[in-house]
């Protein structure tokens, strides 16, 4: 009994402590000031400003790397591993997945329709248009989500996110979109809210190791974390899906997000959770102007 009381007392103490620390810091802005503005706000302008300063950070950090080269991920900044990567890219293992993806893509659904009915312009390249903010459903739609929406609209069961068939289809679509340039827009207040939520995720420390995406992939990008050179966050989404030698398989950006979260000992969120979709939205916007080079191979 005594123990239980101690717990309760401890809990109260702890809470009051937390409350104290909150009070101390309440002077800082607790939410983005921009959200409060009226309709006259041009959200795209705000985003463009963000993109500009985000890039400037990397340009200052890596003055010898052209902006468009960041699509190669860590290999844009690490010459030592670039050579090995180029050798693997000569005949990358994901080429088998592209072929598989094509087979899946072209196979008709039970109702006689196919993916092509959902993705009419696939041959012209569509990867660069994802993710986008869908004004009808008021949410960010990623390519992977769209693939499963297409299936559901055609009475097919959804595919598992992460690896396998869905990743292969995504790879096939990305491969047809190579060299197309990302230019994701933030047209509305709602889109901006999703964007800001992704941005908040990017800068929020989490997990037992207390790291944010930005801690590793912005602030100390290019440094070594144990034996790995940390990749710059600009150019992360362009090469998706990715065949990682560590996985020995092709996986989606969601799979990588989950792995990254696990690396900082944070419980990964669900595939295609709103938080991850918003993060992908934010990250892709930060990579606007870069070309699609997915699927890609990474260590």
């Amino acid at each position, binding site marked *: 009994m005594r123990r239980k009381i101690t717990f309760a007392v401890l809990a109260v103490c702890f809470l009051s402590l937390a409350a104290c620390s909150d009070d101390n810091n309440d002077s800082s802005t607790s939410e983005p000031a921009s959200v409060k503005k009226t309709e006259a706000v041009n959200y795209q302008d705000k985003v463009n400003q963000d993109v500009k300063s985000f890039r400037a950070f990397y340009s200052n950090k890596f003055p010898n790397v052209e902006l468009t080269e960041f699509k190669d991920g860590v290999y844009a900044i690490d010459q030592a591993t670039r050579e090995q990567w180029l050798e693997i890219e000569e*005949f990358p*293992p994901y080429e*088998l997945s592209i*072929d598989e993806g094509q087979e899946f893509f072209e196979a008709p659904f039970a109702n006689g329709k196919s993916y092509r009915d959902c993705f009419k312009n696939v041959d012209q390249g569509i990867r660069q248009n994802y993710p986008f903010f869908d004004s009808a459903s008021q949410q960010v739609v990623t390519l992977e989500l769209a693939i499963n929406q297409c299936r559901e609209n055609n009475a097919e069961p959804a595919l598992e996110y992460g690896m396998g068939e869905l990743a292969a289809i995504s790879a096939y679509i990305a491969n047809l979109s190579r060299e197309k340039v990302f230019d994701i827009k933030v047209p509305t207040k709602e889109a901006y809210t999703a964007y800001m939520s992704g941005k908040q995720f990017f800068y929020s420390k989490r997990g037992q190791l207390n790291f944010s995406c930005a801690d590793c992939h912005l602030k100390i990008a290019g440094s070594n974390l144990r034996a790995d050179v940390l990749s710059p966050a600009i150019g992360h989404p362009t090469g998706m899906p990715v065949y990682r030698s560590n996985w*020995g398989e092709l996986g989606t950006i969601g799979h990588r997000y989950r792995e990254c979260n696990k690396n900082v000992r944070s419980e990964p969120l669900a595939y295609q959770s709103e938080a991850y979709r918003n993060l992908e939205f934010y990250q892709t916007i930060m990579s606007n102007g870069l070309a699609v080079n997915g699927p890609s191979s990474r260590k």
Partner: protein
Amino acid sequence: MATKIKIKVKAKEKKGIVKAKLLVKHPMESGMRKDKAGQLIPIHHLKEVKVDYKGETVFHGEFGTGVSKDPFVAFAFKGTAGDKFTVDAVDSKGNTGNVEVKIK
């Protein structure tokens, strides 16, 4: 239950030399890896790849578990663009795969 081994080949001729690159879809299980339940995953690897051109074996690879997953190998032989060669593969479970390739 034999499954067909998937093989992808690129072959280009330049100055009478054919440079061929080969990618085989294979898990290359070493027999030392454990699955999530802690059980050893049985050894399963690509064993041999044989390449025949004009009635002659120009390449015959033997592979152990020390070869990476989804094995890649490149080799070269004297040949002519437009000709064809065959690639045959067999793995440790007796699965086979084959493909006919036209030299570019």
